[in-house]
Structures are given as structure tokens and as C-alpha cells.
């Protein structure tokens, strides 16, 4: 056990020395730049998602009464809607509550205060039983007497969700592509390192070094390079977001918002570093298993 630990320590020290000597830092920089793309996009998407999460993605239909309609007319419409089998949930939003909600939206309290009287109508928020049939239900609701204006407000929300899904898919594709690039970069670094260590590997084999002993420093090299690349990627993302936020702040403030692009959650950041390390290890492993066998003492 102590021997095993000592050998790993030695292999790790060798890997660090080789990493420093062989321009491993440059390769790590290449990896970092490549990884910063998906990592940065992910951070941007996550920030936008937290905003979008506040919006409802549940398909709903808003049924507005005429602004001048009396409460009794609203009750009559409510009774009629209750009888509709295709409606799962029905919520009445009185005009006073609608005004309160509007006032709660950031940046608008001044506007609301400046209004002399409540311009909003009473409304019903309808959740259909079958989200797919929302347009047909909305069309039927438009024919119901008392309904002045019917809006199926799910379409844009669904479009946004679809767009976010698309962006997410693109992000995964990008990550997979650049992950493969990371493996290739490490593969090559380790290949070059094996070539420069050719004599040492040959002699080590001659005097009884096992394959796993010879492999170990190279595996650590790949792991180190991947982790260094992951750290560099995070640094680039942090720097990029800071620069973006510098520009976003006046824009957000003009909307009365405190929105900022947030850095990756620490869980995600750690995941990126581990992922990069793992891919580096995989690249080294591939390279070593391919190239070490070719070096046999003659």
C-alpha cells in the first residue's frame, strides 16, 4: 500500500514536471478556450432561464370582458365557462386585482399611480384540459357572449420554450464536439510526450517496469492538462461575464431591473472541471494504449 502510494506520488510529480516542461500549459490554454464556449453559453442560458422561469409556460387562455361590463355579467360568463367540459381550471381575475398585479411589475408603479381610474377589464384565466387543443378552445370561447377579447397566450411561451430547448440542444452538440477536441488535443500531447520519452520507456521496459507503471505518469499528465483546461475555461467565462455585465447593467437599470448574468453555480463549475479532467484522462489513456505497445526493446 505504501509502495503503491509512493509510486503514484512519483508518477504525479513526473507528470507535473512534464506538464511544466513540455508546453502542457499551452495545450491547456487551447482546451480552456475551446471549453469556455459551451461553458459560457451554458452560464448565459442558465441566467436567461431563471428569468424565463418567472414566466408561465403552462398554456392558458385569457378571456377578457368589456371594460365597461358589470360584475353580474362576469358572474354569468363564469357560470357558462364552468359548464364547459374542455376546461380544467378556471380562475377569475377581478379588475382591481389585475391592476395590483400590474403595479407589482417592476418599473410600472409610477405609471399605475398616474392613472386616474382602472382601465383594466375583469378577466378569466382558463387552463384547458388538453393543451394541444388550445387554439380550438379559444376559437369557441370567442363565440361565447360576454367574452370581449380572447387571447391564447400559450403560443409565444411555447415558442420560447422550444427556442430554449433548441439552444440547449445546440449547446450539448457544441460541448460534445469540443469535448472530442479536448480528447484529441490530449491524445496528441501525450503522443508527443511518449515520443520524447522513448528511450526512457524502452529502458524501463527492459529493466522490468510494468505497463501500468509506465502508463501512470502519462495518465496523470492527461488528467492535469484537462483540469488545467477546465480551470482556464472557467476563468475565461468569469472574465467574459464580468465584461458583459458591465454593459448589461445600464441596460437592465433602464428597465428598472437588477438583472445580471450570473456565474455558473459551483456545482456546475466543479462538474466542468471534473468533466475536462475525465476527458483529458481518456485522451491520455487512448494515446498511451495505442503508442506504448509500439515501443518494445529490440
Amino acid at each position, binding site marked *: 500500500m*505504501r*509502495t503503491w502510494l*509512493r*509510486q503514484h506520488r*512519483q508518477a504525479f510529480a513526473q507528470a507535473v514536471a512534464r506538464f511544466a516542461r513540455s508546453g502542457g500549459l499551452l495545450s491547456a490554454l487551447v482546451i480552456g478556450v475551446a471549453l469556455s464556449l459551451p461553458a459560457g453559453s451554458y452560464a448565459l442560458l442558465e441566467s436567461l432561464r431563471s428569468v424565463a422561469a418567472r414566466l408561465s409556460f403552462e398554456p392558458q387562455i385569457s378571456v377578457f370582458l368589456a371594460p365597461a361590463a358589470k360584475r353580474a355579467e362576469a358572474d354569468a360568463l363564469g357560470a357558462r365557462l364552468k359548464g364547459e367540459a374542455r376546461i380544467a381550471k378556471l380562475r377569475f381575475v377581478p379588475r382591481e386585482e389585475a391592476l395590483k398585479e400590474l403595479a407589482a411589475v417592476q418599473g410600472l408603479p409610477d405609471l399605475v399611480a398616474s392613472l386616474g381610474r382602472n382601465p383594466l377589464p375583469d378577466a378569466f384565466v382558463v387552463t384547458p384540459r388538453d393543451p394541444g387543443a388550445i387554439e380550438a378552445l379559444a376559437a369557441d370561447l370567442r363565440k361565447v357572449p360576454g367574452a370581449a377579447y380572447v387571447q391564447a397566450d400559450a403560443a409565444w411561451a411555447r415558442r420560447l420554450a422550444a427556442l430554449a430547448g433548441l439552444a440547449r440542444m445546440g449547446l450539448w452538440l457544441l460541448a460534445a464536439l469540443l469535448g472530442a477536441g479536448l480528447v484529441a488535443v490530449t491524445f496528441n500531447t501525450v503522443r508527443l510526450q511518449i515520443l520524447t520519452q522513448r*528511450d*526512457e520507456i*524502452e*529502458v*524501463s*521496459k*527492459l*529493466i*522490468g*517496469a*510494468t*505497463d501500468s*507503471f509506465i502508463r501512470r505518469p502519462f495518465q496523470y499528465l492527461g488528467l492535469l492538462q484537462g483540469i488545467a483546461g477546465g480551470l482556464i475555461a472557467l476563468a475565461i467565462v468569469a472574465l467574459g461575464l464580468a465584461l458583459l455585465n458591465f454593459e448589461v447593467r445600464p441596460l437592465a437599470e433602464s428597465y428598472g431591473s437588477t438583472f445580471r448574468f450570473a456565474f455558473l453555480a459551483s456545482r456546475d463549475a466543479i462538474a466542468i472541471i471534473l468533466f475536462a479532467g475525465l476527458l483529458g484522462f481518456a485522451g491520455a489513456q487512448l494515446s498511451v494504449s495505442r503508442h506504448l505497445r509500439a515501443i*518494445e*526493446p*529490440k
Partner: protein
Amino acid sequence: MISFSAVAKRYPGGQEALRDVSFTVGAGELVFLTGRSGAGKSTVLKLIPAIERPSAGSVVVNGQNVAALKRGAIPYLRRNIGLVFQDQKLLYDRSVYDNVMLPLAFSGHAPREAARRARAALDKVGLLTRERANPVQLSGGEQQRLAIARAVVNRPALLVADEPTANLDADSAARILDIFVEFHRVGVTALIATHDHALVARYGGRTVQLEDGRAK
């Protein structure tokens, strides 16, 4: 210790290095392997640590049939054999001391014990004062002695040397052979390939002569 029986070795391309070689080296023996260059001395020596595999026949080292050895078992076979090569195979990117330390890195000795062994091996070949030098700075004889120090640092029971005195002047060659004889005296089995009959005559060990791919 070593037993060759009816060993043949054909290299890819059809070149037949050994036809039918049989001989044994008993434990504690000092045996010279002689023959003209190209007689197959190097091939015989390469078969012992499984650098090459025989095309036919069996090579038994330390009771193990080398020809049938699995790839994973080869390192453990080699750790018990001190190998000295014609071209030394030293590493020129590190000091004399670090060259000797190399075999100790994976044999699992504690650092202090490893350092002690390395210095003891260097002392035996008279290179203790040069431990910080780079092998490039050593003379041919010194480089060969360094190769011996590296071969014996793990205290193998068997020493195998391929033309260790080639390209050396008479004094250096004698010194190298003296070192082998000293190891032989303390019980190490040694098989030394050489074409220098004068040296062999002086030390008077048993001789196995290779001729035409056969042992005499």
C-alpha cells in the same frame, strides 16, 4: 538457472539466427558465450529476458518457460535478471545516480533504502565519486560500469551481458570482467557474450560456443 533446448529463432523476413541451440547454465556458474559476430550470441541473450521469443524449442529461466510467458509476467521475469547491453542504453537526460535509481523506482523500496542500494552499486563499480555527473561525461569504460551498476542494483541472481568489453581498451575491458568475476564469486550466475578469446582464456570460465546457429 538457464536451460535452452533445441531452440530455433527465425526473424521475420526469413533470416535464421539460431537453428538448434541447447545448453544449460547452472546456478552460480560463470559462462562465456562465444562465436563470430553474427553467430547468434545477441539472439541467445535476447531470448533470456523475453525481448525475443523462440520460433521453436524451449527457454527456461529460473524454472519459468520464457517462451510461454504471458505479456504481463515479463516485467517480473526481467526484474530478476541484470541486463548489460552492448550499447549500454543509458539515459542521458539525468545523472549517473538517477540512472542507477531507475530500476528501484518500481521495485518498491523505501526512498532511503533505494538511495543506499544505488550508492552501494555505484561503489562496487567504482563510480561513487561520479554520481552527479551526466553519463555523457563518462568514458566508454565508465559508461559500461554504470550499465553494470544499474543491472545489479536490484541484486538479481542472474547477470546477462552482451559484449560488455567491445570497443574498450584492454585495461578497461579487464576491469569490467573483474567486476563480473566478483559478482560471480558472491554467488551470482553470469552469462557473458564475447568474441574476445584472450579474455575468456584469462578468466577460465566455461565456454559455450555458437557456430552456424548451433551451440558447441
